[in-house]
């Protein structure tokens, strides 16, 4: 209870700070090979200068295989200096895969899985433009897999 109260106070203080520096709290982005698979689009809401809530999603068709992914997450800025920042993300991932059959003797295959991910990354940001490179460990029903992603986004 005490911890929750402290977090609320910190977040509300940071919200004031975020509003004060004139940078939008909203980030819209596209990513390549990140938490949302081959590519994805996402939205992030800054709760404070160091804390944000986000979600990325995608629908990709890779050589007939249909992949739908949704990944909500928490974004935490660990270190920041001018336009540079080191950040971490922690989140969940749900993916639905459908492999349609390319041949008549088989019906194809579908599967849905869930898991989580932890990422660490570098960000270069200006007032309106954000670029990130991220390394992630994604854990789920198939074990653990590494992923390297790239993000470019705008703060309107």
């Amino acid at each position, binding site marked *: 209870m005490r911890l929750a109260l402290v977090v609320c106070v910190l977040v509300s203080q940071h919200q004031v700070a975020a509003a004060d520096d004139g940078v939008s709290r909203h980030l819209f982005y596209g990513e390549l090979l990140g938490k949302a698979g081959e590519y994805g689009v996402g939205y992030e809401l800054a709760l404070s200068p160091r804390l944000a809530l986000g979600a990325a999603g995608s629908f990709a068709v890779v050589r007939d295989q249909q992949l739908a992914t949704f990944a909500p997450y928490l974004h935490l800025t660990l270190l920041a200096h001018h336009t540079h920042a080191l950040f971490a993300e922690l989140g969940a991932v749900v993916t639905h895969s459908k492999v349609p059959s390319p041949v008549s003797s088989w019906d194809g295959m579908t599967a849905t899985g869930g898991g989580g991910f932890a990422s660490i990354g570098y960000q270069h940001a200006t007032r309106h433009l954000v670029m990130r490179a991220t390394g992630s460990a994604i854990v789920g029903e198939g074990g653990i*897999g590494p992923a390297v992603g790239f993000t470019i986004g705008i703060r309107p």
Partner: protein
Amino acid sequence: MKAALLALVAGCVDVANTGTAWEDLSAITGELAPEHGPDPAPLAAPTTLRVATFNVHFADDVDNLAAQIRASTYLARADVLFVQEIRRYHSEPVSRVERLATALGMTWVYAPAHTVDNGGVHGVAILSRYPLVAAQVRQLPYFDQPNPEQRIALRADVVLDGAPLHVVDVHLDTRLAPSDRIRQLDPALQDVGDRMVIGGDLNTLPWTWVDGAVPLTGTEAVVGQDQATIVDDFFAGNGFARAIASDVVTTRAPIFSMRLDDLYARELAVTTGDVEHVDGSDHWPVWFDLRR
């Protein structure tokens, strides 16, 4: 510019050709001419037939490879052995397949898939303690992707007390997406017969590949739908039983655990099967027993 953009959106992998029909070995001449060894000494047909598959990674040291197989409790008793990635060089007086088969007391058929540097060829073989007849080869669909290779399937009938058993040895591409792997594999099952054994190096790397170059490792980790599972499902849908489960490792690759190789039988009961840990290659062989 427009074409480049379309290529980028559509991806860089495509089926460049859909392969060929089964061809008799005698129809193939030149550098890729197949080999067919003499019939072995007559043997009584067994009630339980053991079939094994082994990607021998070029078989540079045939004597050691033969010694490894003979020293294995499970492989030494194999009646039929599928071999992948075995080479033949002009500079060597006897082909590596012939040396291996002779050392194991078996006959053989060998089909090169393509040429390699230094005047050699690279292909697949079927070795058997029983006569092999009706040997044929077919080119499998060719995928235009980074570092492409022509892949083939080699089939033959093993003569067992008058009732031939159809066997097919395959070696598929490495960096294929699941649907393309099924596209490449499916022709190897066609026009062979119902009672058959098929196997080899299916190269079922777990992930979906983007443009034959980038594996979606994170996606596979979340879904748990690796390519070995997909290929098993394809075979099950075609009435086949497998030798080993999709999580059994058949390669020495560091970090990642992968089942690249397996065997499947239709209209024959699989009584037991496993992977065998022997030296001599970057793969481990797989075997299973079939009740006839």
